[in-house]
């Protein structure tokens, strides 16, 4: 079953065309990785899946993006879309407040006020993000006191707190050390059961290790898209092969 279907997606930042005729389907409960050199449009594409590009001045998009068969660039509530499609950013960005408040911010935004329920959500989200044991004794401490890797898992927990269907991850480990990275990779594989995950990564080994499907982007175009095993062993395109084997990028 497909979670997202994209058809002929073009995107411009003012006069610069960042995405060209992207057509792809993203299956549910799988990990889809976007790879490609810097400036190839992979981050732009992931940001248009929850309309974070709306925040960029001069951004214009055409074509069709559907989430569960519903057009997301139509007349829908963007805030509800972003609740369904959570996002984890390149650099950990916990809010400057306590760990508890960081996690409770999302549910509170969507109208949950009961203290009991919030406690429950906070615990569940932190457990799901595999950071509960490290934080349960210091929920009232500032989130900025955590280490970088912990902060990123906190941000994953924060994204999970609003019970999304999809988790978008924009190079979530690029700012982290190898140990934290492997912890997050384990976590992502575990989360696949309940969430559809789209991950942008610079690290090809990472894509090979964790993803089910991989899309390779170059200069705003989707060059090749298919099962990760196939892309990495028998790429159909010369350019994909060159990139994967490290001849450029």
């Amino acid at each position, binding site marked *: 079953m497909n979670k997202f279907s994209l058809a002929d997606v073009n995107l411009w930042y003012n006069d610069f065309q960042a995405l060209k005729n992207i057509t792809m389907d993203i299956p549910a409960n799988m990990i889809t990785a976007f790879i490609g050199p810097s400036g190839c449009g992979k981050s732009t594409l992931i940001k248009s899946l929850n309309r974070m590009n709306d925040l960029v001045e001069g951004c214009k998009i055409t074509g069709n993006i559907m989430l569960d068969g519903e057009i997301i660039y139509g007349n829908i509530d963007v805030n509800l*879309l*972003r*609740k369904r499609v959570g*996002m984890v*950013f390149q650099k950990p*960005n916990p809010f*400057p407040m306590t760990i508890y408040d960081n996690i409770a911010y*999302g549910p509170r935004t969507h109208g949950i006020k009961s203290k009991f329920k919030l406690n429950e959500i906070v615990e569940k989200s932190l457990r799901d993000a595999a950071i509960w044991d490290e934080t349960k004794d210091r929920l009232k401490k500032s989130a900025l006191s955590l280490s970088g890797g912990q902060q990123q898992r906190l*941000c994953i927990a924060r*994204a999970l707190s609003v019970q999304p269907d999809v988790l978008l991850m924009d190079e979530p480990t690029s700012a982290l050390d190898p140990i934290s990275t492997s912890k997050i990779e384990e976590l992502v594989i575990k989360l696949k059961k309940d969430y559809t995950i789209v991950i942008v990564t610079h690290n090809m080994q990472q894509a090979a290790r964790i993803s089910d499907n991989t899309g390779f982007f170059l200069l705003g175009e989707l060059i090749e898209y298919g099962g990760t095993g196939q892309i990495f062993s028998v790429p159909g395109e010369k350019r994909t092969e060159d990139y994967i084997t490290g001849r450029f990028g």
Partner: protein
Amino acid sequence: MKIAGLFKMKRRKPLDFVLFALTWICIGLTVSVLALVVGYVLINGVMYIRPSLFAFQYTVENQSLFPALVGTLMIVAMALTLSVPIGVFSAIYLVEYAKRGSRFVRIVRVTTETLAGIPSIVYGLFGFIFFGVVLGWGLSLMSGAFTVSIMILPLIMRTTEESLKAVPDAFREGSFGLGAGKLRTVGRIVLPAAMPGILAGVILAIGRIIGETAAIIFTLGNVARMPNNLFDTGRTLSAHMYALANEGTHPGEAHATAAVLLIVVILINALSSRIARLIKAS
């Protein structure tokens, strides 16, 4: 300066040396101006500070600054009530909502710069005409507070703008990514993060109000008594100081009042720069 150290070996030309010596002399002069003013006022003033100066009632004998202190507090409170919300809200609009460099933003920028450059006597004149005469409020707390609140508006706007801009976009993205609307993002994430900077600006504004004289005496008036209501006249500490200095009949009290005023200003300055330093550290 570190690079300079590497080149210390180079031969100094006499002219360069003279110019460099001049920088030392001039900074020395600047510091001695400060030391002279602060030192003179404090040393001569502190010994005249006595309890009668803070008597509840002002009389010709005691020259109490207490009514002026109350008037100052009231003007500060009223002006901040008017100016802080408006200044913060407009800064929010400029930073968070408006398109960068749009026509409206440019007009607001130019007018704010204009407001910042207008001398206080012109504010006094305007407040006297508009609030005092046209609106018929006369010499009153209302006229004074409204006039002063326009005066500090550019200061509050600029400091708030700068602190909002200093809040990393990552916070905003995080909040929007969770499905929060703009208002919630600004109110719950951006404003609290910018709060120390805004506070430092507000404290600077308080300093401006306390030090203000020319705009006060023609709007609030300069009568040494407790204001009974918002449309009653009074005086502030600076206006009190001005009156004392001009009358010249109570030099001791004038010295003491100057010292008190200066101490208040120094404390406020210290507080503001302390907050500014905290922001830099974090």
